[in-house]
């Protein structure tokens, strides 16, 4: 364990208890995220990626191994994470602004009500939702809801931002829009993030490290560092370097799925 890392996951094993006996989902999971880093986690479906997010959030305590944030072992939920899911889960009876303010009603905060509202408005403007503060979630499109959900995850300036396939249900164009918005947000509101995704292009566009998990029970199978190329634009996805990375990742996923033997990776 190095002290530079904000998140350190070592030797994590976890099994769900089911009617037909324990179902191991994670076995030998290792993951480190430095402060300010953004790690994307990819892997075959049902490999335990969402379990990983619940571990980092402290919603789940692993059977073995440990999850540390800032060197402190996580044993219960702490107020310093922000979460966004594929389902934006906005509260229909609240306006967008009130939805974004929700975490401030729960976590201890130094912000006054007015300061909180100011911050919420700024975040909403940052993701392009200026003028929608007083709308209800039902009046927004899927992409807009997801942007509001992102603002809610960031309002209390969490140490860790956990994104569990937040763009999975969106159409391709909206998704690319949101990728660019994510870069804008990260520049203005630096965060340490873990992104769960099924989309390899998304992983190399957004993250600075991509972790491939094996099939269930999941262990860390492969880690790909994305070189820092400065400001990324969508054009970066169509370079030979990007093609090479995507090929490597796709191959690793096939290995994880058990379709090709691991030796072929050399």
């Amino acid at each position, binding site marked *: 364990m190095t002290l530079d890392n904000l998140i350190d996951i070592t030797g994590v094993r976890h099994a769900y208890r089911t009617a037909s006996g324990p179902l191991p989902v994670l076995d030998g999971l290792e993951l480190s995220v430095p402060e300010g880093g953004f790690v994307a986690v990819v892997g075959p479906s049902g490999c335990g990626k969402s379990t990983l997010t*619940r571990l980092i*959030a*402290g*919603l789940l305590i692993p059977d073995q191994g440990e999850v540390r944030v800032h060197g402190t072992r996580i044993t*219960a*939920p*702490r*107020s310093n*994470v922000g*979460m966004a*899911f594929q*389902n934006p*889960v906005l*509260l*229909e*009876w609240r306006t967008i602004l009130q939805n974004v303010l*929700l*975490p401030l*009603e*729960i*976590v201890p905060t130094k912000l006054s009500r007015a300061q909180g509202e100011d911050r919420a408005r700024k975040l909403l403007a940052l993701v392009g939702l200026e003028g929608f503060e007083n709308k*209800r979630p*039902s*009046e927004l499109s899927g992409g807009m809801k997801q942007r509001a959900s992102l603002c*809610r995850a960031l309002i*209390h300036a969490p140490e860790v931002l*956990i994104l569990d396939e937040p763009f999975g249900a969106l159409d391709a164009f909206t998704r690319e829009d949101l990728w660019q918005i994510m870069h804008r947000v990260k520049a203005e509101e630096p965060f340490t993030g873990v992104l769960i995704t099924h989309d390899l292009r998304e992983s190399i566009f957004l993250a600075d490290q991509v972790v491939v998990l094996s099939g269930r029970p999941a262990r860390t199978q492969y880690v790909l560092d994305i070189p820092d190329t400065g400001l990324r634009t969508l054009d970066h996805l169509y370079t030979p370097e990007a093609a090479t990375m995507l090929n490597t990742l796709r191959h690793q996923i096939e290995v994880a799925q058990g379709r090709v033997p691991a030796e072929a990776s050399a």
Partner: protein
Amino acid sequence: MTARQVYVPVAALLIFLAAWEALVWVMGWPTFKMAAPSDLPPAYAKYWELFLTMGWQTLWRTVAGLLLAVVFGTALGMVMGFSRTMRDALYPLLVGFNAVPKATVVPIVALMFVGWHDFNTVLIAFMISFFPIAVSVSIGLSTLEPEYRDILRSLGASQSTIFWKIALPKTLPEFFGALKVSVTLAFIGTNLMEIVSPHGRGLGALFDSGKTNSDYPLMFAVLIALALLGILLYYIVVALEKTFAGWADRSNI
């Protein structure tokens, strides 16, 4: 409320009354077979004082039973919504209880609490109307998407915070849907007791005395008065729903 929302139901009511009057007139039915709407005003005029006092007795006892049903049904729904074990344990009991016709329970309750007229009536109104509320609250709570819970739990929120901030408001539309059913059920309960176990109170008793005295227009007048009370309570629930769960209405979008 727009003018349309007033005149459409009023027009429907007038058409219904006209059709009823025409049916009785065309068939040439005597009042003991079926009274016509035109037979009712004299009945109301003759017994208006009784209608007021007995209508009030029926109304307050129904509302009291309904309030009990709301409190008990919500509590039961919460217990079943939050605990799988309690849900498995209580559902069969609850369904069995609800399957017992309340008309058969009325004489038992009347004997059990003999002389406690108001209590008996409120009890039956309550027993017949809490079931939909309990079921809807329990379903509303148990079908809460886990992400809602996770969002708040990851922030360190307590179970009671999750309940007040998310589970309760999210269940309100189902709750009001059930309450609309319960309103009419509660009236049935009140009147069952008033008719089956006569103690001279409520519109049910007035109906019974109409029967005893072969005053058929009076019997029909009671039925219409009951319908009006039911409509009144229903719209009170609708107004509450608009205030507290208006956000769930998508008809304007």
